[in-house]
């Protein structure tokens, strides 16, 4: 089987020749740039600065040589701009706080504040207020909340829709090349077009906008899902209309070069509970999910991918009813998310893309043997009858020992009965 055939088999709940692997295909299935460099060194690949793929979480590009070394089966097609609103073009060198020389796009513009923290600017515009901050000595940016005072009488859903616009012509042009190029690798292609995430709390503060209006504070947004539900419905309804129009245009350009679309990263689970009730998911989110998924299933061959961290077991039936084909990151350590239970109850109806190894404890802090044991166990549980793409539970975090990442890859190979390297694609 080619990588693409392998992934498509598993997405259609048929058992492939071996468990396919994604690492680096999306902004939620990737690897911190420091770990990408460590992996390149481990596999003895050409020494060169790693490109920053996603500046918010500081994810590194997994280049072709590293994909081959690790046996990756999935290729990513990425959004028009990054989380900070600039395009990934025209690379320049940048030295990180931990001393790594990396390549960043030209509009990745930062300053160091009086505390030694790194501040980054939306669209690279240093005349606008900074929208992200990386604390000194640490590894990720987080959003700087820019919330104008809220005047209840003047709240206008249009203010929360600034980021949802008709797809740019130059993005369509870019996709017309990027999608066929991704497909030509022989891997399955997962695309993150953007615009279909309803109320993703990472996107609500709009770190990509220079002067965001509307409800942008995280607490205020969560409260609004309860107290200003009509407002949120108006935002989602209009966003959905725009998204459907965009998907049509995008489909015309990329067609069947794409196999999977990352629809939404809104987190509904916490470690032990959830952000809302099943009733709220069904009333506030499901109508829009259903419209997007239904359109895709009616007009394309794409499978749809839903990311939600945390304890989401009680939501899975609703995700399935909403038309999602794939669930990620399958956080088995959260309440009610036991791997065997999930596979037994939902395994024939939804694909688990993730759940391969825990990234809060086992992968960063465990021993290589502990990593191996967990990976083998998860592959055993999740892979029967297909419906499983191996991926870590969310991105590989900074500071994860390279030996553990390698132990993870080796364990998938061991499970697949394939000890020799580099013969995947």
């Amino acid at each position, binding site marked *: 089987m080619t990588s693409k055939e392998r992934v498509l088999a598993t997405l259609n709940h048929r058992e492939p020749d071996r468990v396919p692997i994604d690492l680096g295909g999306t902004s939620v299935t990737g690897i911190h740039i420091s770990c990408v460099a460590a992996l390149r060194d481990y596999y003895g690949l050409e020494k060169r600065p790693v490109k920053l793929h996603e500046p918010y979480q500081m994810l590194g590009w997994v280049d072709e040589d590293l994909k081959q070394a690790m046996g990756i089966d999935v290729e990513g097609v990425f959004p028009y701009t990054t989380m900070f609103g600039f395009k990934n073009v025209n690379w320049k060198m940048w030295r990180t706080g931990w001393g790594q020389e990396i390549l960043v796009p030209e509009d990745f513009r930062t300053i160091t504040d009086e505390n030694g*923290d790194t501040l980054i600017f939306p669209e690279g515009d240093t005349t606008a207020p900074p929208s992200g*901050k990386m*604390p000194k*000595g*640490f*590894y*990720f940016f*987080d959003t700087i909340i820019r919330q104008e005072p809220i005047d209840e009488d003047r709240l206008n859903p249009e203010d929360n829709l600034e980021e949802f616009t008709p797809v740019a012509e130059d993005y369509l042009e870019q996709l017309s090349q990027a999608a066929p190029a991704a497909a030509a690798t022989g891997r399955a292609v997962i695309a993150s077009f953007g615009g279909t995430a309803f109320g993703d709390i990472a996107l609500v503060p709009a770190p990509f906008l220079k002067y965001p209006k509307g409800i942008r504070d*995280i*607490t205020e947004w*969560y*409260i609004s*899902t*309860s*107290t200003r539900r009509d407002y949120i419905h108006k935002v989602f309804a209009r966003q959905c209309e725009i998204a459907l129009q965009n998907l049509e245009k995008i489909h015309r350009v990329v067609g069947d070069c794409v196999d999977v679309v990352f629809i939404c990263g809104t987190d509904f689970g*916490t*470690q*032990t*509970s*959830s*952000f*809302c*009730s099943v009733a*709220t998911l069904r009333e506030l989110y499901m109508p829009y999910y259903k419209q997007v998924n239904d359109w895709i299933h009616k007009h394309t061959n794409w499978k749809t991918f839903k990311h939600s961290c945390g304890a989401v077991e009680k939501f899975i039936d609703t995700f399935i009813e909403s038309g999602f084909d794939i669930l990620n990151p399958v956080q088995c350590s959260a309440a009610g998310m036991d791997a065997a239970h999930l596979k037994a109850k939902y395994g024939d109806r939804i694909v688990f893309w993730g759940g391969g190894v825990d*990234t*809060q*404890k086992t992968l*960063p802090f465990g021993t290589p043997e502990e990593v191996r044991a967990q990976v083998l166990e998860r592959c055993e549980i999740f892979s029967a009858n297909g419906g499983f793409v191996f991926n870590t539970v969310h991105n590989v*975090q*900074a*500071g994860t020992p390279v030996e553990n990442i390698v132990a993870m890859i080796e364990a998938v190979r061991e499970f697949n009965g394939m000890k020799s390297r580099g013969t995947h694609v």
Partner: protein
Amino acid sequence: MSELSKLYEAILTGDSKAAVAITKEALAAGTDPLEIVNTQMVPAMDEAGRRFECEEYFVPELLLAARAMKGALELIRPLLAERGTEPAGRVVIGTVKGDLHDIGKNLVSSMLEGGGFEVIDLGADVAPERFVEAVRERNPDLVCLSALLTVTMPSMKTTIDALKDAGLRDRVRVLVGGAPVTEQWAREIGADGYGPNAAAAVPLARKLIMK
């Protein structure tokens, strides 16, 4: 239902305007501020916490209750301070160094305030030395440390170690919480307690203070 007892309902349903109005009226009528805290605010936040634990309430409802409680508390706090009323306990709280996430920390802070504790909130991305300074100056009973990121969990240990180095560790109880934090991690780094969620923090804090 007496006018004052409507405060319980206003907090529980997250009606900030009503909570403030009822509190103002009660204070103007000469109601003992401590009575307002003990008969209305503490039970209302306890009930909000209970509902959160059994999934009748979720994050938005808990945030709303906390906001209503805070509105009322702002009116009451200066009066309690004036008469030197002792709180249930004094807490220094913050998200540890390197971590800018504060929703969980804010919820714990509100639950503790609603539970009658005096809370000194140091904010997010708080360096160990700032915790040390706060413990030295404010003499709290408890220090609460929050982390959302896996990579900032070690900052909890650094903070506890800094308290030890400053000779202050024995003066306070240390409580930890946040998504990646576990009971086992709490034990490993030498914390006194771990709360799996915001609602659990209050009974745990009360228990630790009684010891």
